[in-house]
């Protein structure tokens, strides 16, 4: 009998360890989710017990890095994170407006202004950034000034047409933030733009 009890004990202890690790999993952990845009990226956890890479939506891992990523039940995600997920604000929306020449919007971009105003009206405490850009034709400092003129023009057009907002910033990135990468002194209509981020 004592021999049997010893066997039982040596079997039981690993089981209890396994159970404890499971219990730990309900404490500090992360779960990767699909992005609102449908893509899935990746996260790494680096803790004192190791480093893990999670790249599959629905997989989770302990924050101490001790366990390889494993699927987390949807019920558990809902139970632990339902309130945080329900509080997620609307995903920001970005509009790109293009210019014919210098400071004249294309007709299509001008037609987008009411859409931007409606989008802003649908959000609580909406904050908006209006950022002007140029292509690489001409001098950098002149392009910085031109991009600011473009951004200011779009901001004023939006306000004139009835845009309401909690906060707005108007900035210039000049030729330093190209949408289409080009060498210097390249005429590129897609780089002559104002980006409006509605958050």
């Amino acid at each position, binding site marked *: 009998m004592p021999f049997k009890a010893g066997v039982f004990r040596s079997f039981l202890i690993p089981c209890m360890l396994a159970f404890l690790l499971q219990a730990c999993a309900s*404490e*500090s*952990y*992360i*779960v*990767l*989710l*699909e*992005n*609102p845009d449908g*893509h*899935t*990226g*990746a*996260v*790494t*956890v*680096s*803790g*004192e017990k190791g480093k893990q890479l999670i790249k599959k939506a629905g997989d989770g891992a*302990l*924050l*101490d*890095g001790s366990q390889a990523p494993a699927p987390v039940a949807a019920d558990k*995600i809902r139970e*632990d*994170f*339902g*309130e*945080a*997920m*329900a*509080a*997620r*604000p*609307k*995903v*920001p929306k*970005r509009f790109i407006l293009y210019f014919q020449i210098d400071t004249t919007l294309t007709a299509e971009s001008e037609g987008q202004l009411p859409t931007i105003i409606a989008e802003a009206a649908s*959000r*609580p*405490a909406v*904050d908006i*950034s209006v950022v002007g850009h140029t292509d690489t034709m001409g001098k950098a400092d002149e392009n910085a000034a031109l991009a600011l003129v473009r951004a200011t023009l779009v901001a004023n057009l939006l306000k004139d047409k009835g845009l309401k907002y*909690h*906060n707005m*910033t108007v900035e210039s*990135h*000049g030729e*330093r*933030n190209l949408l289409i990468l080009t060498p210097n002194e390249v005429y590129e209509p897609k780089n002559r733009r104002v980006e409006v*981020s509605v*958050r």
Partner: protein
Amino acid sequence: MFKCVVLSSCLLSPVLWAADAPIGWVKNVTGDASVSSHGVLVRAESGTAVWQGSVLRTGAKSSMGITFKDETIMSFGPNTQMSVDEYLYAPAQGQLSLVGKLAKGTMNYVSGIIAKLQPDAVAVNTPVGMIGVRGTQFVVKVEE
């Protein structure tokens, strides 16, 4: 001494304005939540500004959602504390950084443009481990 060095390098920085402007705004709150910035604690509501260094807290049965300038989204469940220790968003200067610390509670995180342009510039620290973000959405829970 260290603080002096940090301060003077901030003053010389071309993104000085960044330190003077909000980095995000509270969009929604249920129950009790607060934003503590520059040593001043305010009760959070839709429209409350968030600054670099702000500490964000929710109470029992409460939640809060915040959207940052670079389109990063953080929302918190009950009994949560998160600080935004470093936030730099100046893409034209190539200055990008988002470092926070989740001390306790639950968070739903959707990464924004900082993570898209420079993934290694984003980190969420916790008492047990550090999270690196490669352009994605995740949920995380820290129990005390």
